């Protein structure tokens, strides 16, 4: 099997050794973890729903089926008519609204983690690489951000910017995403700093310095790739927090401008009808729950797969 085209390459060893790269090993360990696989499949499904769902439903998320509401004298029950999951009191199809909500939640997952990376990685890397006063200053800044009550800051920022172009972008969601990211990057900065502080003392960094590689390249080409395992785990496990924060804010009315509805605002809207139409609360709450669990499973699995401390022990 080994190298058919390799006339110039060294002859293959008698028993071709399977490459034992970090990523290959980690991926094999991940595949053995059933909960992580389940989480990964659900995450992939949610992402697909977020991208394609709104094109596939027969209803727009804001379209009202008033006739159905009049017939049902209130919200339409699920599993009875053309509306698979029923409608709310205004005749809006719940499934379509859920799918639009999936789009919001998956965008939160993405945008917040991008903000976290964009701020947390440079801050953490600079603190570790330069050390001394730069380190002290940057870590003091993270202390201040850490002491800020998260949700209060996000609420304040989104109310303060509500009337600006930035505050109105993405139906008022962008400012919420960025605000969540602005409170969430501290953990990433501390993680990157800790990782880089130990990597900085390794021999390959000394070798790179000796051959005259620039500081910037050492950090970006040598240090950060070596810290990427824990960073990926932190990103994945940070996603449920971001989704939860967005849903909580939507529940108290901060974020998506109506008629758009995040899962959190669907729960808030359904509250009024909880006794007669419990599905209006239960179904969006289940959607939040499934998203939170699947990202947590996937993140836990990634951590176990990438944690070298457990290597060979399980």
């Amino acid at each position, binding site marked *: 099997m080994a190298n058919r085209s390799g006339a110039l390459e060294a002859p293959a060893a008698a028993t071709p050794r399977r490459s034992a790269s970090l990523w290959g090993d980690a991926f094999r360990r991940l595949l053995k973890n059933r909960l992580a696989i389940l989480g990964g499949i659900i995450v992939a499904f949610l992402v697909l729903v977020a991208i394609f769902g709104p094109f596939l439903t027969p209803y727009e998320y804001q379209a009202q089926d008033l006739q159905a509401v009049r017939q049902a004298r209130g919200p339409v029950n699920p599993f009875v008519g053309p509306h698979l999951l029923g409608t709310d009191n205004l005749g809006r199809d719940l499934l379509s609204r859920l799918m639009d909500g999936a789009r919001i939640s998956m965008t939160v997952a993405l945008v917040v983690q991008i903000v976290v990376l964009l701020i947390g990685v440079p801050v953490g890397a600079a603190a570790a690489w330069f050390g001394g006063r730069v380190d002290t200053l940057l870590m003091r800044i993270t202390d201040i951000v850490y002491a800020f009550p998260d*949700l209060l800051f996000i609420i304040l920022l989104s109310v303060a910017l509500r009337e600006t172009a930035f505050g109105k972008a993405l139906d008022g969601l962008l400012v919420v995403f960025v605000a969540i990211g602005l409170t969430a990057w501290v953990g990433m900065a501390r993680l990157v700093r800790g990782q880089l502080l130990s990597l900085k003392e390794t021999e390959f960094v000394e070798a790179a310095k000796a051959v005259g590689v620039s500081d910037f390249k050492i950090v970006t080409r040598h240090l950060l790739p070596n810290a990427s395992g824990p960073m990926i785990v932190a990103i994945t496990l940070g996603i449920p927090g971001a989704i939860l924060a967005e849903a909580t804010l939507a529940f108290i009315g901060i974020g998506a401008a109506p008629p758009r509805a995040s899962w959190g605002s669907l729960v808030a809207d359904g509250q009024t009808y909880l006794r007669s139409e419990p599905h209006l609360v239960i179904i969006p*709450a289940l959607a939040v729950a499934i998203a939170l669990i699947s990202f947590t499973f996937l993140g836990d699995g990634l951590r176990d797969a990438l944690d070298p401390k457990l290597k060979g022990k399980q």
Partner: protein
Amino acid sequence: MLGYIIRRVLWIIPVLFFVSVITFVLMRATPSGPFDSFGGGRIAAPGVVAALEAKYGLNDPPHVQYLRWVGNLLQGDLGPSYKYRDRTVNDIVGEGIGTTVMLGLMAFTVAVLIGIPLGVIAALRHNGIPDYLATFVSIIGIATPSFVLAILLLVFFSVTLGWFPSQSARWWDNPSTWVLPTVALAGFPIAQIARYTRASMLEVTRKDYVRTAQSKGLRERTIVSIHMIRNALIPVVTILGPILAFLITGSFIVETIFGVPGIGRYYIVSIGQRDYGVIMAMTMLFAVAIAVLNLVVDVLYAYIDPRIRYS
């Protein structure tokens, strides 16, 4: 150690300064002011608004207003409330803070008393039925946001079953009403603590000193209680500070849903109403809570784990 504590305590002062400046700037950047509308969307005559703004000094340059706020704060005066004009911010905070702290502490106690045993049992019966049950409970805790848990508890236990009195005047005086808000608040921390304890216990199980204790023939109970749990709890302590801070500052959702007379429920309302004094007071209180609790945890950590040395 003492030097470390003193430096950390002193560092809280600049942190609070920056938190207050950021909050102040964000608040003032918010369009419209506290007197632009009154209850029910009534709009006051322009002269009235100007007079009110002049009375509270809202027309002074921002830095003058900020310094006045700091000056009053140093004298223990949190300023007037623009919306509850018969009360000062001191009154509002004084009335509610006890309730908020008590609710947070009750939820914290419940979370620790359930979460730690759950994690320990799960680890001791690793991959057994108790482990799966404990894992199931913690998954539910992680997957259920406090606002969902609060609504479900309220409707099921209070409205449908009628086990707990629902809101009425002075309902909080009856201790049985504390149960549901406490459970709603404790759900997530229980799961967090249980997961953390379980992982930490599993790690300790593989340690040499545990194998030594086993080969010495010590009783299982002794090994678990003296050698395993005590060591496994060291990392768990580090997450307890953030959890308590989260419970005290994050209770405003639960307070709003259940109508708990704490300070948290004022927060959202006061931002909507631009009640600057209340917003500043809440943010500062919560920031103090976070900073102090983190300090306590760090000191406690060094105390229970003599290997940790702060310089």
